[in-house]
């Protein structure tokens, strides 16, 4: 996302020349500061996001134990100074596993969101711009996807494509497809006859060039909000799939599968095995949901609730 595109609200971007008196970066910062001051929760969620991103980036290098190393002399130990989050039934350090798992969960979510952003975004703006058959076909595809309970469809897709992490990414992307199509279609449709589009057409630009060079950059802010709103759902969905045993294979640290592994210990009272990965998952999803709301306030003040 470029900084200039962030300053444009949808209303302003419909006109070709938003009046910008200040240098763009300055006004973005000022606006961002205003939003954070207005709603400190957004600031908090941004701080959380930085922590999660750091865990994903450098997590494997800073954890105190090898996340895969089992230790039969220290199985199922309660949280202590040595093992902050305790150990599991194989004596692996849960803190290390939770931190290392961040990267995999993060990558699954980002990959699926990036995929649906490209596919759903392009399908949506084409549908909204060309209308006619393109619109009907894209609409029919999204309607069919929406006819399924989404998690159930994801299960079916992973079952059919094969039980791998890549297919979890694909399934998560597919079930989010209608959401992206709807937003992109509506935004592109509004701008279809906008002044700047007509100007571009008069200067001899072809349809595809207008779509990619003129309309797409203008709807980027809205799409970014959509991305952060669906990131949380993507993480939840992927963790849910791995909780029921799809995708990620056992020794790999991943939040969903770690909760599943700890599920049997819950009944005998060893709560920490499932609790910490579950809490990490919850915090990550919470953070993305808040961040999405905050980003929407920043980009699209009219939709604030």
């Amino acid at each position, binding site marked *: 996302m470029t900084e200039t595109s962030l300053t444009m609200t949808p209303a302003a971007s419909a006109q070709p020349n938003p009046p910008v008196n200040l240098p763009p970066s300055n006004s973005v910062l000022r606006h961002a500061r205003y939003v954070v001051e207005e709603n400190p929760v957004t600031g908090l969620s941004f701080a959380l996001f930085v922590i999660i991103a750091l865990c994903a980036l450098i997590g494997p290098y800073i954890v105190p134990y090898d996340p895969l190393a089992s230790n039969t002399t220290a199985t199922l130990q309660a949280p202590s100074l040595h093992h902050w989050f305790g150990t599991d039934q194989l004596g692996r350090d849960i803190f290390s596993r939770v931190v290392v798992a961040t990267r995999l969960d993060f990558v699954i979510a980002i990959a699926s969101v990036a995929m649906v952003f490209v596919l759903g975004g392009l399908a949506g703006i084409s549908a909204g711009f060309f209308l006619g058959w393109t619109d009907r076909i894209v609409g029919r595809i999204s309607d*069919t996807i929406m006819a399924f309970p989404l*998690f*159930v469809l994801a299960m079916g897709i992973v079952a*059919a*494509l094969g039980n791998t992490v890549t297919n979890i990414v694909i399934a998560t992307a597919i079930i989010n497809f209608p959401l992206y199509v709807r937003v992109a279609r509506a935004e592109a449709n509004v701008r279809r006859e906008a002044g700047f589009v007509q100007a571009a057409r008069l200067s001899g630009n072809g349809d595809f060039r207008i779509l990619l060079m003129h309309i797409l950059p203008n709807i980027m802010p809205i799409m970014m909000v959509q991305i952060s709103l669906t990131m949380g759902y993507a993480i939840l969905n992927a963790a849910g799939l791995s909780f029921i045993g799809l995708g990620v294979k056992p020794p790999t640290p991943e939040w969903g599968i770690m909760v599943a592994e700890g599920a049997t210990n819950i009944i005998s*009272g060893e*709560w920490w095995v499932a609790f910490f990965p579950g809490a990490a998952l919850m915090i990550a*999803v919470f953070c993305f949901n808040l961040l999405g709301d905050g980003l929407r306030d920043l980009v699209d003040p009219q939709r604030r609730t």
Partner: protein
Amino acid sequence: MLATIAKRLVTVLPTLVGVVIVTFLLTRVLPGDPAVYFAGPAATPQSIAEIRKGLGLDRPLPEQFARYVNDLAHGNFGNSLSTGRPVATEITSRLPASAELTLLGLILSIVIAVPLGIFAAVKQGSWIDHLCRIVATAGVSLPVFFTGLLFVYIFYFKLGWSPAPIGRLDAFTTAPRNITGFYLIDSLLIGNFETFRSSLGQLILPATTLAVFSLAPIARMTRASMLSVLASEFVRTARASGLDSRTVIITYAFRNAMLPVVTTLGMVFSFLLGANVLVEKVFAWPGIGSYAVEALLQSDFAPVQGFVLTMAVLYVALNLLIDMLYGVIDPRVRLEA
């Protein structure tokens, strides 16, 4: 009214066709050999070839599709590999367990979320409004399997209030005679209160888990739509005419505010039917979700396909029901149709 229903039923047809095509495609066109899936992991090349012939996979695709639709029309969902039993009978016998759980979860969540949303809107900015906001944000962030496990730990292990999560009934209680398939209703019908209590005890935790999950969208929507209705002119007129606030809120505002909430129920059902699978796994609930999960892990594809199709058809039917409910609540919808 009948004409409206008929008209709406016709619009459902393309959706159903889409659903059937997708469930068919899930096995046939995607990469990998469906015969290998159906044969299971321990199959020899010979048995795979046999299965391919038996399933008609050596035929052209449209013919396979016609055969699939024909099978479905005769209620034949194929056979499970691991148990050898027909998928259709298994799903029909397990469906009431899932339905009972999901419906109780939904009822619980409506009973909590709607009043919460109304109070939050009426007393905007009060503690109940903040509570509503916290519930709405936290509810969508909680992984449903995690909430379920937390409940098991607190209410079973720590407090001992709820029974072990081992299914629909305690180990020493027998299932009531099958009338509706819903243990709560069946046990009441035959007057067996011990079974009723045992079944309710087993149901309460998973149903609450589902309710916590689906609370958020309902509460949020109730609050938002109540707020906009309360700000409208007819409410102001009603207030100005001297009606007491109880009448204004319940009779005037509430009914109008319910329309968007009923619409949200469609989305809530999509979440609930998915979350149901996870909750069934956590509580060892013998429903169709856990059936599908078991089959999935054994690469037994026929039950999964049957499950996806059943869920999709159920979901389409529920959406249809919601549309009709909409007509019941709002006379304007009836007039337009």
